[in-house]
């Protein structure tokens, strides 16, 4: 019976175990950071940082260092630039995000071009964008854990002031909270979390895990603390189910080489969000 669901070798495969562990850490960090991303309406910045990280990842390919460092450096720098040129109004902020993203994408294009021309790693474009959880190296696990802890720690440390500054910036300013500094620190934490997930599971999945579970959780509950836990659970569930389906799909048509994990995870995340909106919960977010 179980072998119909879990193809033989699923639990004993070391690459599946590693993918599950890294996926879980990334999903929990993304859930924690993502609840604030959704409350603050900064999905675009989250998406952009993941994409810009691709520029860092590709330049790291070029320089021959581990992509994780490239992703980190570039995402944090981009967050700084966005904060510098971003006006506080939402519209101006989106525009600033877009301009930085455009320039970052342009650089990514150039680096990937130079990389593919000089050392023939033609698959680099695809790897950077779509990632591949099954091809992770064991050495990333401690790095992922440390950076994840830093990002989550920042959020927990800032929890109360960040919440107030996100829900009501006016009230926060009235209480003499440094709203701009809090926003900047939050953007840095988000850059860390996004770069972390972008390099391990790909830029697409990083956005999906950042926004999807958090938005679903905020439909189900209004309390931020509970929403963070729910988002983490949904994220881990989506990630593990996606890994299981991808593993099973090795025997599926048409090519018998496995469907991509990212496809399964984004589909699960989208379905979860749509069904959470169908539930007429009491006192849910508009």
């Amino acid at each position, binding site marked *: 019976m179980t072998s119909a669901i879990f193809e033989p070798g699923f639990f004993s495969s070391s690459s599946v175990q590693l993918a599950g562990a890294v996926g879980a850490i990334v999903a929990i960090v993304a859930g924690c950071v993502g609840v604030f991303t959704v409350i603050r309406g900064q999905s675009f910045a989250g*998406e952009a940082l993941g994409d810009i990280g691709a520029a860092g990842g590709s330049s790291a390919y070029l320089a021959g260092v581990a992509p994780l460092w490239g992703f980190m450096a570039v995402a944090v720098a981009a967050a700084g630039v966005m904060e510098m040129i971003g006006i506080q109004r939402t519209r101006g902020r989106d525009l600033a995000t*877009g301009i930085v993203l455009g320039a970052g994408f342009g650089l990514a294009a*150039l680096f990937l*071009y130079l990389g593919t021309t000089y050392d023939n790693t033609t698959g680099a474009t695809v790897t950077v964008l779509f990632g591949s959880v099954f091809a992770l190296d064991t050495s990333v696990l401690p790095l992922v854990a440390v950076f994840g802890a830093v990002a989550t720690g920042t959020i927990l440390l800032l929890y109360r002031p960040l919440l107030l500054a996100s829900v009501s910036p006016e009230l926060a300013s009235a209480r003499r909270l440094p709203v701009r500094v809090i926003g900047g620190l939050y953007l840095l934490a988000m850059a860390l979390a996004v770069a972390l997930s972008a390099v391990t599971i790909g830029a*697409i999945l990083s956005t999906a895990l950042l926004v999807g579970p958090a938005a679903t959780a905020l439909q189900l509950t209004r309390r931020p603390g509970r929403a963070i836990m729910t988002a983490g659970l949904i994220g881990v569930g989506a990630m593990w189910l996606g890994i299981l389906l991808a593993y099973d799909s090795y025997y599926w048509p048409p090519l018998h080489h496995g469907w991509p994990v990212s496809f399964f995870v984004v589909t699960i995340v989208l379905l979860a969000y749509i069904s959470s909106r169908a539930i007429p919960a009491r006192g849910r977010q508009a």
Partner: protein
Amino acid sequence: MDAKPDPPVFSGFMVNAWIVASIVAVVGGAVGFFVVLRGSAFVAHAVPNGSFAGAAAASLVGVSTLLGLGVFALGGALGIGFLSRRGRPDVATALTLVFMFGLGALFLSFSVAYAPEIYSLLFGEVLGISTNQLGPTIALAAVSLGVLAVLYRRLLLSSVLPDSAPAHGVALFGVELGFLLLVALATTMTVPVVGTALIFSLMIGPPAAARAFTTRPYVAIALSIGIALVVVWVAIALSYQTNWPVGFFVGIASAVAYAAGRTWSFARGARRARVKS
């Protein structure tokens, strides 16, 4: 694959590429004015990137890339429109985008597409423009500009005064869908030139710069088209010379245009402050 082909001699082929790119810049600059006015940068980023899946699907099924791009751009635009009807627009946009990107990853895994092809789809290639694209591009441009002209007043009113627009008989949701349709149309024709990743640069940089120089809508649109034309011409010429991707030059040139606009309004603000004091 380790050596790119040498640039061909300037030919009738390049003239066609030039014409197609110029049409693209005109439509991008005009539609972009409303993208910036409505603060819809994220949508302008999501629709083209999502339509990437359409190109992958088209190569899988064996139909024209333009058709695949068009269908997926429209589908993405409608998905964003309906999902954000009751809910946070940025969440709806993000989830639609990642879902379509996931579909793209799936189609790519089915096909045996060669990595450089994916690359040129993402970041554009001058040599990717072929002569038989001239007809469809002109037709799509005519439709886009027609829709823009019809919706012009309603788009302007609902962007600037969203609260009082319904009182003037403007249906906000209808206008939003019309606007998304415009972005989808502009996307479909632009992808083959600058690639899915950099279209929105063209739709944000020039109009944002134009708005720094003038507040009158007609002048701003004209200026935006002008800057977009310069950006595209410079990008194509440099890409032709260096063989580097068009997208790189478009992204950087748009950012430079935006920076120029910001510097101008900053300098003007400083001058005004001096005059007052």
